[in-house]
């Protein structure tokens, strides 16, 4: 296989959640190499770590994000895809240190104060990671001060906030307001089941998306990825 074919096949492994050769899923790929082995082969055949990221992992995860948005796949499929991506990423990690792999930037993610919902925000993090971003996950019940401290620590970051209850949307409003006062240039994305576009606009957030892929597409418009 050429490196181009290997990268295409790696993208498919991510899309289909094929982790490694031992993994019996999906059944039609049983016995074949998975994301783990194909990454090793692609690097050995001369693909650069950056190629692996942009031409395979990001391609595969983008399809996953689209399919998830279109309800063609569901959370378990997404989690299998994220597993496959992680199995590949393990081989890229050494190249992050040597700057041979350049990520697009950092996104600080958190569920706002008073809100303990974790899973939706975590899924957003996985898809954004698959779009080439480094994720700093602050967890749940994140106070405004914690968001402020994280932005201070990662000055060029973007911020993503999640809220699942109308009662915690006011905490989101407060956090967005304070962040914008201190760091007006920092872009803030918001999401979560009870939110609306109008609410996001009213509180001064830069973007609202009902699903993770919407966030990816917005980020593509403001920070295009160069291969």
């Amino acid at each position, binding site marked *: 296989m050429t490196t181009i074919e290997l990268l295409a096949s790696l993208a498919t492994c991510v899309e289909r959640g094929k982790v490694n050769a031992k993994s019996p*899923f999906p059944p039609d790929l049983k016995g074949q190499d998975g994301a783990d082995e194909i990454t090793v082969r692609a690097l050995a055949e001369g693909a650069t770590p950056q190629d692996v990221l942009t031409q395979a992992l990001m391609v595969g995860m983008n399809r996953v994000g689209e399919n998830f948005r279109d309800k063609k796949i569901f959370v378990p499929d997404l989690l*299998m895809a994220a*597993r496959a991506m992680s199995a590949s990423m393990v081989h890229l990690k050494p190249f992050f240190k040597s700057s041979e792999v350049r990520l697009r930037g950092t996104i600080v993610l958190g569920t706002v104060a*008073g*809100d303990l919902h*974790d899973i939706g925000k*975590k899924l957003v993090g996985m898809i954004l990671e698959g779009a080439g971003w480094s994720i700093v996950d602050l967890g749940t019940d994140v106070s405004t001060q914690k968001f402020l401290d994280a932005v201070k620590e990662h000055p060029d970051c973007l911020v993503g906030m999640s809220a699942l*209850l*109308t*009662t915690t949307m006011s905490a989101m409003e407060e956090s967005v307001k304070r962040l914008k006062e201190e760091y007006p240039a920092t872009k803030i994305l918001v999401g979560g089941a009870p939110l609306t576009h109008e609410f996001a606009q009213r509180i001064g957030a830069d973007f609202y998306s009902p699903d993770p892929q919407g966030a990816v597409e917005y980020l593509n418009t403001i920070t295009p990825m160069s291969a």
Partner: protein
Amino acid sequence: MTNDPQIFSVAAASLALTQQDIVNALGYADAPVPEYLPDMIDEALDAAEPLLDVRCGFRVYTGTDVSLSPDTLGCAHVRFSTGRIIATRLRHSTSLAVFAATIGPGVETASRRLMAEGDDLTGFIYDTIASAYAETAAEWIEQTIAAAAAADNEHITNRYSPGYCDWRVAEQHALFSLLPPGFLGISLTESALMLPIKSVSGIIGIGTGVKREQYQCSVCDMGECIRRKFTTGHIHARH
């Protein structure tokens, strides 16, 4: 019907959750189910069962304790701003049952632990099972209230929860003030989140002139609401 608080400890077996329920809750009601899922669901259902601590209960308010207006609901010392949709559905009630149901923290804690250990998929299946049990526990208490009402030749309305149909979640604090302190072991955070998380609360109207109805989502503007998805057939889970 007695006005004393009623509390039940419910055996998991009486909630009878099936593999298919979880398949549906995960989104695959009308889609091919990945091969790995059925076994994982079965294992998770088995593992979850001993972690359940299902408690359900209600308290009935009646007579002068109940006063209804076109968009509010008076219950003892509390006046809820439920909005028109719920107030209209409850308008012929002569009693109100304030209810709660919880499955305890066990399954959710196990789910979080699995995720922290890196097994997101199994953790998510546990979480989905816990949510499904919480909804089934709410159905169980609704049926129990229906049976108690039937014994007095009365009917019940649908159950309505703060957070639905224009009824603000913040009114959870007022709702819980109508139940004994620490009811079923549930506590409320300042932001009105119930702990344990996998809990449901609400109100059911009782009377001879009330009935259960289809949800009328066309009269509400909450676009992303789960009830809307349910009534339009996109999602099969509901509180």
